[in-house]
């Protein structure tokens, strides 16, 4: 009898350890996803800080682009105020991304601005920041994938609730605008 009880206790302990490690793994994945999300935010902050500087330099030379400047300013405010990880934030960021790219393309039409030392530096920093944002998004997507796998595959799905609101986080996808085919002739 004692032996059966010992075996039963052993089996229970093994299961308890297994389920605890499963639970701990999900919590770890959830925290990784949140860390990745805040990583994007850190990089986006850099972009928000950079935008006013770029606009100040560009305004001196690009007097006819007021509409674009206003749009960028508005989208910057919208994106920075949107809650972290929300769909609105991702959408605003995507739109801001498109407008900033348009600004950088328009810079090409202003040779004086293009050769301005502060603008060159600002553009280099912009490229650096954009690359970091792209890297942060890749880390975020990878963390979300790991988290989703861990809570969607049995028996992880039994502990899905532990992941809480992190489960509502979406994969980052590029905006519709950037998926459209490019008409190269307008840049030539």
């Amino acid at each position, binding site marked *: 009898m004692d032996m059966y009880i010992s075996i039963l206790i052993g089996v229970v302990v093994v299961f308890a350890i297994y389920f605890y490690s499963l639970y701990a793994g999900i919590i770890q994945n959830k925290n990784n996803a949140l860390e990745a999300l805040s990583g994007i935010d850190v990089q986006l902050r850099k972009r928000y800080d950079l935008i006013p500087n770029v606009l100040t330099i560009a305004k001196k030379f690009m007097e006819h682009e007021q509409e674009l400047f206003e749009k960028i300013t508005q989208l910057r405010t919208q994106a920075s105020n949107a809650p972290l990880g929300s769909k609105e934030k991702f959408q605003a960021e995507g739109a801001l991304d498109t407008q900033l790219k348009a600004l950088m393309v328009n810079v090409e039409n202003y040779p004086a601005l293009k050769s301005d030392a502060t603008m060159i530096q600002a553009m280099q920093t912009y*490229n650096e920041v954009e*690359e970091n944002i792209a*890297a942060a998004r890749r880390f975020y997507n990878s963390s979300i994938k790991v988290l989703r796998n861990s809570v969607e595959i049995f028996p992880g799905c039994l502990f899905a609730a532990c992941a809480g609101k992190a489960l509502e986080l979406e994969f980052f996808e590029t905006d519709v605008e950037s998926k459209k085919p490019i008409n190269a002739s307008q840049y030539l």
Partner: protein
Amino acid sequence: MTNNYKDIQKKVFSSEFTKFCQKNIVRSLKDLEKKRKAYINCIIGVIALGIIANFAYFYFIYANQIPFQIEAIAISIAFIVLVSNIIIKSYKSEAKKFVLPKLISYIGNFKIVDKNNVKDEIEQYVQSLNLIDSFNRFYCDDCLEGEYKGVNLNVYELDLKYTTGSGKHRRTYCIFDGLFIKFKSFKKFSGRTVIKRDEGLSMKKHGNVVLEDPEFEKYFNVDGTDQIEARYLLTPAFMNRLVELKKRPIGRGITMSFEHGYVNIAVDSRKEWFTVPFLKEVCILQGWYKKKDWFEISISKPVTDITNYREIVLDLLSIFSIIDVLKMDQNIGI
């Protein structure tokens, strides 16, 4: 392969290179050719001496005792191999001193650095990296410094070993034997990202950075102090290039790290005798491996033979191809 690498490769097999060698190398190496012949005669002498000594041992001392005969053969073979090796090595190092500076001047703005001046500095630097496992014996052979397509390169030929115990329990393991390349990166980074080969010994991935490219993940493990920085450095395009490099002979034993503001590349030139994973590892660790000798001049070929020099230039080109394939010379952001 980039066009540029192909162009240089064509150049090496062109008549222009032959003329260059004839004019700048072959003519000035008449004394070396004499020495080469003298070295070969020496080797023949050593072999003859070994054989004569063996015969003498057989017929005059232990004529009818089989175990002693085997012992005698083994001793004379060991003697011949040891002495011949010393002679060959001394010829090679002498020839290299003459030839290498002239050959690298053909490739570009490169110079040979005295290893005694930089040895300690390199040892400390390599020791501080997470790229190569810890070692306590450091050997440095050729040291080259120069510029290739605007990238300031340092190339060192290293042999790193780890010795444990003493006396009978002394064991020496080979940690690394190959080329170590160091250069500044266009991208700024403050953390550490190490890309090691996935040896396939364990089912579990060792690196803490898991990347999206399945082919890259098949070949490499990435460890980093910063997940975002690792992805900033290892863009999808860069991962593709690293996989492409891995498929080439020079990339077979490649590991890489972004540390201390430099890109550090270790090209292990040890080639295992076995392909079975466990045996392969054991043999390499024990030092039973085939080794590629970099920038070596063969004693069996006369100094007038251009193929000697062609191989050295191709060795150098294969190193430069790493820069070409990884596009490290271009600030393209990927």
